[in-house]
């Protein structure tokens, strides 16, 4: 059935293309017949004109149809030549023009293929009489940086004749009248008018054009002129986004782009930021935008399966990902920010429609630098950075004497924690042993040490005061070097660069090295064919941490009484064997831990190499028709390797004993799952992709006044991406014994303390996925007088993705938009001359989103290993149940925006308002257990996203010496879930994943804190202890008794950047702000098992807030910190209707409720200063001494200098979103980095 449909579609498309192919030659033939007249001199071409009372424009129109020449009519000429009467058949063009213009006061000039009709300059004849001899003038053209601008065009403004083009040294020699005026123009620079004034040497410095940014919108498929762009787009220059000390472009973009919210949840070098363009509009699908570099989508080096993280990520890496320590890179991590020319953000449906279904989350288009015609420039840039290390300041943690005092007090009050052998047998098994004050106290009361020894020991502990941040962190040095070379002639241009970057985190053990090279070459074979070849390659190596090796967590939560070299034990492990008489014999080992040892004997590295080759050929078929073909081949090879060797605690846990403790050759050693060697997990992924794209672009301007302009584009694209890889896990890894793997899997260890399951010891999974796309896209733009523009974009994709609707039908995505350039209206222009630009844009688009992994058919999956050795069966398992009623998710987007620029472009404002209605979002809902599965997928929910993006650029001061500019952008987004098919429970409500009608997707709820109990100091809650209403607490709808805490993601995000220049000195700063959201405070100390609140374990540090805890009745009046008891009160599910909040789904504690209470919710709004930079550019005069040096800039830069946030956060980073208060794992903080940069041009 499906293949039938597919065939039908292919055929329909085939037919369409055939028709197109048939029409093409006809179209071309029609044009070609005119082109035959071209070899004759322009004036001699023969034309036929028969008109009565025609206007000049009409005659020109007739002439245009017959000769392939360009006619330019000088302003006012049309008014002079009216009522033209001509009757000439097959006459030479010059004759026709002569006759037509005779006596009108007009003349014509033929310059190659251009005929200019203008008023006769009355002065000119006089000048001709004087006959001043021309002089030889040498003109040198450069920019403000002193770079010679080869290729600049010089026109003689006195008679509008083209004088010439500067050579590669930016020079040209002209023969001119001494009184001539020259007009010098070059793309990207402001055109200048310079009088010759009898000078023989002219040096002209061009200023960069202010309007250049808005001029061309690069969508990756088209380069649209500003008046053709109807969608919501933002374009920035790569150079402006460059922050010294930040090696990645995605992180550097934070706070810079209206409507694009970038969250950097942790400071780990090599981890990816979270990018959201205008909120989220899917519940289960991928929410990241796509990155496009030079027209090619950058795929991630590892396949993405958002919904089913378990499929690709093993438990270890998942743990490090949740701890924010992931170092899996994304597609653009390897791109050198210095190679980026500009970045365009496509935000609304109209702008993204050409990317089809994959673009539902926005598109970010990066263009790399290309060479420019002119002399060869060599540029060198280096950044040297130093990153601070964190300290205990503002961490509110106890020092060792405070900690000893807490332990003393606890023991004195009988709230002792787990003194071995005293508090029940399980504590022997699980409790920390002989650590800190508690350990010493135990030795003392068990009479193993004297009173004197005890006192000395306590004094020693108090003095230890280990600075864990000092032990585990460093002042980290990072380097960045880029050398680039660019230049070119009329025929060919090139840009090439190589870069090296080494970024180190202040946490010892986390760093990243990157090497990259880029080459862009462009040839103009003739004036019809342009050929571009680009090559990009990079190698990226990142070192991160193994699971449970989290320096931040360790430094924050470890008792400072411990010394850095101390090996200590918090758990013991028993290895059992059975003797011949059937009796049990157990070997008990206290497993020893030391952080530095653990870090040294574990490893987590990612190694990626990426190569991309792309080429495109642009052929001008006729004046109006352009053909472009593009091919790209790109591949990555990534390896992720995680291991722990036999010296590590991680392996000791599996082994069941410390290294060397199990007697060699003993039964105990045989009973251990991993007696020798460590654990190695390795994942290798090869990604291979190619893209082939062909498009035809038809551009035609029609009408007597050239008022109708039409742009038609259609294309076809094939894209293929293959991931092939293998993930393996092995026991018995010996990294220090020749990198050998040696383990006997045939031995069974039935009584081992660790799992003996085969899958826990060994796996070897292959990945082999192939994704193919065939897409057709087209765009139609019509513009009237460049004032009114309408645009229609559409795209259809088909793919080979399995079990989807994808190939049942091509998936159409379309958008329509309109634009009105108000300023172009004559009535407007004359009245308000202080307005430089004013337009209004509006668009509507329709997108269908496909959620991977859910489809209408039952999808079965092969089970690995291939067969069960027990019964010899090969298995198929149900991957997804059939959901025949499931539909595609649909999103409709409306956008209306305006761009206003006033006061000589001193103030420019862009405003966009959007409304997105997403319908039929797929979500999971709970179903009765009897159906054999816990959840099903339904198209139940709708969601709206409303918001606006504003960006304002103001240049308050602009003089010769001073320039001050401020850029401000903000975006407001609010979303609401409509009628979700979702059953909430306590867990989803409190952790912010519940969907509740009328509330935002990221809303979360809290228990109502009602003070501390007068008698016990335990936290009380509304309805439970105060205003008791136990029936209400049994209500299955928990929103009835919880309080709504707000949304967990910022509603308003934005940034400010400002720069102040005085002559050559520039001071710039950028800020990121995130406003209107709430988050939970981190717990005041780590919870005990499943969230219990009790005396902190001897190896753990505690918050200084505990000093102010409830200690005696009456304290509740001035403290909200509960009293500590040996055991927390267990609130079983008997109080509430469900126990889902508990990690074991059955029991939980008052402390859990306390952490999830409204008391612990604070406003997360903050303003973070991303960087402050001071730059000095040397003047050309200063540089003349150094031969060859054309430009030199030095800069000092500070990133993350400060953050302004609520004092209630007590130093907690508000950007690390945590609504799950009980399982908070601290992530590496983003530390302040100071960088020095040097940029030299030769």
């Amino acid at each position: 059935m499906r293949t039938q449909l597919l065939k039908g579609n292919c055929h329909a498309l085939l037919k369409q293309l055939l028709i197109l192919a048939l029409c093409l030659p006809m179209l071309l033939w029609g044009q070609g017949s005119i082109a035959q007249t071209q070899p004759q001199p322009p004036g001699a071409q023969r034309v036929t004109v028969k008109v009565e009372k025609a206007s000049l424009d009409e005659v020109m129109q007739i002439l245009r149809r017959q000769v392939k020449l360009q006619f330019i009519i000088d302003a006012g000429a049309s008014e002079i030549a009216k009522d033209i009467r001509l009757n000439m058949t097959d006459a030479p063009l010059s004759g026709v023009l002569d006759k037509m213009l005779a006596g009108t006061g007009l003349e014509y000039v033929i310059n190659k293929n251009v005929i200019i009709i203008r008023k006769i300059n009355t002065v000119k004849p006089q000048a001709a009489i004087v006959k001043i001899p021309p002089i030889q003038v040498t003109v040198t053209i450069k920019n403000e940086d002193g770079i010679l601008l080869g290729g600049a065009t010089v026109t003689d403004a006195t008679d509008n004749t083209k004088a010439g083009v500067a050579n590669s040294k930016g020079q040209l020699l002209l023969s001119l009248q001494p009184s001539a005026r020259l007009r010098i123009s070059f793309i990207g620079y402001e055109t200048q008018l310079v009088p010759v004034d009898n000078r023989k040497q002219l040096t002209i410095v061009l200023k960069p054009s202010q309007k250049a940014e808005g001029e061309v919108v690069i969508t990756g498929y088209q380069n649209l002129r500003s008046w053709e762009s109807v969608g919501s787009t933002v374009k920035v220059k790569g150079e402006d986004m460059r922050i010294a000390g930040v090696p990645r472009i995605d992180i550097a973009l934070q706070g810079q782009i209206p409507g694009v919210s970038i969250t950097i949840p942790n400071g780990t070098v090599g981890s990816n930021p979270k990018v959201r363009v205008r909120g989220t509009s899917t519940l289960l699908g991928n929410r990241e935008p796509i990155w496009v570099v030079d027209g090619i989508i950058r795929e991630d080096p590892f396949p993405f399966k958002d919904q089913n993280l378990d499929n690709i990520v093993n438990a270890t890496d998942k743990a490090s990902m949740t701890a924010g320590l992931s170092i899996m890179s994304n597609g653009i991590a390897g791109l050198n920010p210095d190679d980026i020319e500009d970045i365009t953000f496509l935000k609304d449906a109209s702008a993204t429609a050409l990317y089809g279904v994959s673009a539902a989350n926005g598109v970010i288009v990066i263009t790399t630098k290309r060479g420019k015609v002119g002399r060869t420039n060599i540029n060198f840039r280096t950044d040297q950075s130093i990153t601070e290390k964190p300290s205990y300041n503002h961490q509110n943690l106890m020092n060792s004497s405070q900690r000893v005092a807490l332990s003393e007090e606890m023991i004195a009050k009988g709230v002792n924690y787990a003194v071995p052998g005293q508090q029940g047998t399980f504590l022997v098994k699980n409790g920390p042993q002989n650590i800190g004050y508690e350990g010493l106290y135990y030795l003392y009361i068990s009479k193993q040490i004297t009173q004197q020894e005890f006192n000395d020991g306590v004094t020693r502990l108090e003095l230890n005061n280990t600075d864990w941040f000092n032990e585990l962190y460093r002042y980290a040095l990072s380097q960045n070097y880029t050398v680039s070379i660019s230049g070119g002639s009329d025929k060919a241009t090139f840009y090439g660069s190589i870069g090296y970057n080494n970024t180190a985190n202040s946490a010892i053990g986390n760093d990243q090295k990157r090497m990259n090279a880029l080459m862009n070459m462009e040839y103009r074979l003739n004036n019809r064919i342009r050929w571009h070849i680009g090559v990009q390659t990079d190698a990226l190596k990142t070192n991160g941490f193994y699971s449970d090796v989290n320096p931040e967590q360790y430094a924050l939560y470890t008792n400072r009484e411990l010394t850095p070299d101390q090996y200590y034990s918090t758990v013991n492990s028993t290895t059992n064997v059975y003797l011949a008489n059937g009796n049990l014999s157990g070997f008990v080992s206290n497993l020893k831990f030391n952080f530095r040892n653990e870090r040294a004997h574990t490893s987590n590295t990612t190694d990626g190499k990426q190569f991309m080759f792309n080429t495109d050929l642009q052929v001008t078929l006729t004046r109006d028709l352009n053909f472009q073909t593009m091919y790209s081949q790109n591949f990555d090879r990534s390896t992720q390797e995680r291991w722990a060797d036999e010296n590590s605690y991680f392996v000791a846990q599996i082994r069941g004993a410390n290294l060397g403790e199990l007697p060699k050759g003993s039964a105990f050693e045989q009973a251990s799952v991993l007696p020798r060697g460590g654990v190695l997990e390795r994942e290798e992924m090869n990604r291979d992709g190619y893209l082939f794209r062909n498009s035809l672009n038809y551009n035609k301007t029609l009408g007597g006044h050239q008022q109708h302009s039409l742009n038609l584009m259609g294309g076809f694209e094939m894209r293929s991406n293959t991931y092939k890889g293998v993930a393996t896990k092995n026991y018995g890894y010996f990294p220090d014994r020749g990198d050998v793997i040696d383990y006997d899997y045939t031995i069974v260890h039935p009584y081992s303390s660790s799992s003996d399951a085969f899958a826990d010891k060994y796996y070897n999974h292959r990945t082999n996925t192939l994704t193919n796309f065939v897409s057709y896209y087209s765009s139609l733009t019509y513009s009237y007088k460049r004032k009114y523009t309408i645009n229609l974009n559409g795209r259809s994709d088909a793919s080979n993705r399995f079990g989807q609707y994808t190939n049942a039908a091509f998936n159409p995505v379309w958008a329509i938009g309109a634009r009105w350039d108000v300023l172009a209206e004559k009535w407007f222009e004359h009245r308000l001359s202080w307005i430089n630009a004013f337009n209004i844009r509006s668009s509507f688009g329709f997108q269908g989103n496909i959620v991977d992994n859910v489809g209408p058919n039952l999808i079965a999956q092969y089970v690995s290993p291939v067969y069960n050795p027990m019964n010899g069966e090969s298995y198929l398992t149900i991957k997804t149940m059939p959901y025949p009623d499931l539909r595609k998710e649909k999103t409709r987007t409306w956008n209306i925006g305006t761009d206003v620029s006033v006061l000589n472009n001193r103030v420019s404002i862009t405003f966009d308002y959007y409304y997105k209605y997403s319908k039929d979002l797929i979500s999971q809902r709970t179903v009765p257990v009897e159906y054999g599965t816990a959840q099903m997928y339904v198209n139940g929910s709708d969601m709206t996203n409303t918001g606006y993006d504003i960006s304002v650029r103001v240049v308050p001061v602009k003089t010769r010496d001073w320039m001050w500019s401020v850029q401000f952008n903000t975006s407001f987004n609010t979303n609401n879930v409509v009628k979700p098919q979702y059953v909430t429970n306590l867990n989803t409500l409190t952790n912010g994943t519940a969907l509740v009608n009328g509330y935002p997707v990221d809303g979360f709820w809290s228990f109502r804190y009602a003070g501390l109990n007068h008698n016990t100091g335990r936290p009380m809650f509304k309805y439970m202890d105060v205003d008791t209403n136990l029936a209400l607490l049994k209500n299955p709808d928990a929103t009835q008794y919880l309080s709504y805490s707000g949304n967990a993601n910022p509603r308003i995000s934005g940034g400010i950047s400002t720069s102040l220049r005085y002559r050559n000195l520039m001071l710039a700063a950028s800020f990121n702000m995130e406003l209107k959201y709430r988050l939970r405070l981190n717990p005041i100390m780590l919870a005990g098992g499943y969230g219990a609140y009790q005396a902190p374990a001897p190896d753990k540090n505690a918050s200084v807030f505990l000093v102010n805890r409830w200690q005696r009745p009456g304290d509740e009046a001035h403290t909200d910190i509960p009293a500590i008891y040996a055991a927390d009160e267990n609130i079983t599910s008997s109080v509430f209707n469900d126990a889902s909040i508990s990690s074991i789904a059955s029991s939980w504690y008052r402390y859990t409720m306390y952490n999830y209470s409204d008391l612990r919710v604070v406003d997360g709004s903050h303003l973070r200063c991303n960087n402050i930079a001071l730059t000095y550019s040397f003047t050309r005069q200063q540089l003349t001494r150094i031969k060859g040096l054309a430009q030199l800039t030095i800069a000092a830069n500070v990133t993350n200098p400060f953050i302004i946030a609520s004092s209630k956060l007590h130093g907690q980073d508000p950007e690390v979103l945590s609504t799950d208060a009980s399982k908070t794992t601290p992530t590496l903080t983003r530390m302040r980095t100071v960088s020095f940069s040097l940029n030299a041009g030769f």
Partner: protein
Amino acid sequence: MSRNITFTFSLAALLLLTGCKKFLKETSQDEMTPTTTTSLNELLAKEGYPYVGSAYYASDGFSFCNYLHFMDDDLHLQNMVSYNDVTTYVKPFYAWSDNAYIEATLPPAGSPSGVSGATLSNPYQQLYNRIRGCNIVIEMLPQVSGPDDDKDQIQGEALVLRAYYYLMLVNLYGWPYNAPGHDRNSSPGVPIIVKGDISAANVARSTVAQVYDLITSDIEKAVSLLEEKRTISTVFRVNYRVAWLLASRIYLYMEQWDKVVAYTNKLIGDYPLLADLNLWKLPVPQSITLGSNNASFIDPSNAEMLFLFSGMRGGDWSYINLSYPQCIASTDLTSLYETNDMRFGTYNATNPPPNFFLNRQSGYYMNSKFYYSNGEASRCFRMAEAYANRAEAYIRTAIKGGDASLLQNALDDLNAIRVRRFVSGAPNATVTLASLNNDPQQVLQFCLTERRREFSFEEFRWFDLRRYGMPSIQHTFNPNEPYVTNATLPVETYTLPQGSNRYVMKIPQNALDANPALVQNP
């Protein structure tokens, strides 16, 4: 020139489009939509069959109800302080607590952090999950390609399994079929789901009679599908013999004795095999880390096995667990074994006869029908049950006024089992009617005792107690024995009154939460 380019482009487009179908052919390395009987067969093996071979499928290793024996009278719980967590898991069931399941999965009240509750199987959820697999396979069968014989076989297997799962469900969560005072036509059983679709609709509990109607119609249909071709593949697959045996068990529970006899006759006529323990060779353990090399009774090498299933991992404390000799055989049970009975003995590696059913470890008798070893099955359907079921049906028929000669037939069946369980030539291996005073009641008692001896810890006893009129039973727990010597805590005694509500399990909370139409058992 431009024409050439256009031509090239058109040609290229044409060529590419012809490749379109192939380029867009659905591909996936590891996914597929089952379209053949072979695929459905593999799907049934994973999604419809009980789990087996836990070494490779670690998370699937539980038996359906690993706490069933905590409640019957074959098990005795003793204290062992250093492993008091086991006591925590077992005791709520052992004491027939109203909320046993919840209590067992909770850490004990007031316990400090780090103590977890038990990981228990949730039979309600697991059985319905397996039923889903059977339903999907049955529903998809008509749409896939393959020989009709294969389709019949797959459908037959799926129906046998579904009948078994519903039999387990209705006996865990409903009153017995013939329970006095509980009319099967009104007493709630379990919800009936026989379709593969999922929906959010709530389903109410059908009556016990309705569930039995489904079970009998499934098994009858399965028998008719399977007994024609009589295909036997492996011991890990159900087949016509398993269908007959299960049918006899179902009718035994329903007390339709003639049907029990009919199906067991078919089975014993077809496959009269019973394993003789005298001929059974147990390999001597090779290493002092016991377990891995011992052959056990429930094993694929035992020809008496008709169907093996359920891997063994944690939580099933009734089997011989060397680390935790807490769940031991009750003296009630051990006292039933006679001399020369090889099912019961002292472990002796070098001097056979070994013991097969109850093994002595560290001074206590524990279930040793299977050993802890990752990869083995712990549950089975085996031939002895056919003899036991037929014997009981004969006796019950005779008591009801049937042919008295059936009593001798019954003894023949029981003796057939016994001679293969006793040391060969043992005089007490066979029993005669005379030794039972020709009293039908005594014969019945002997039959039920033999059944208890033979099927200890094979998930029979609890269901048998329910059939026998839900008698009152008693459990004792001495906190002082055997490892706590200095304590003098009172001995705890628990009584399950006759016909107690606790003969019916409570429906798990997660099922009640997700389906408001369910009514909890009293």
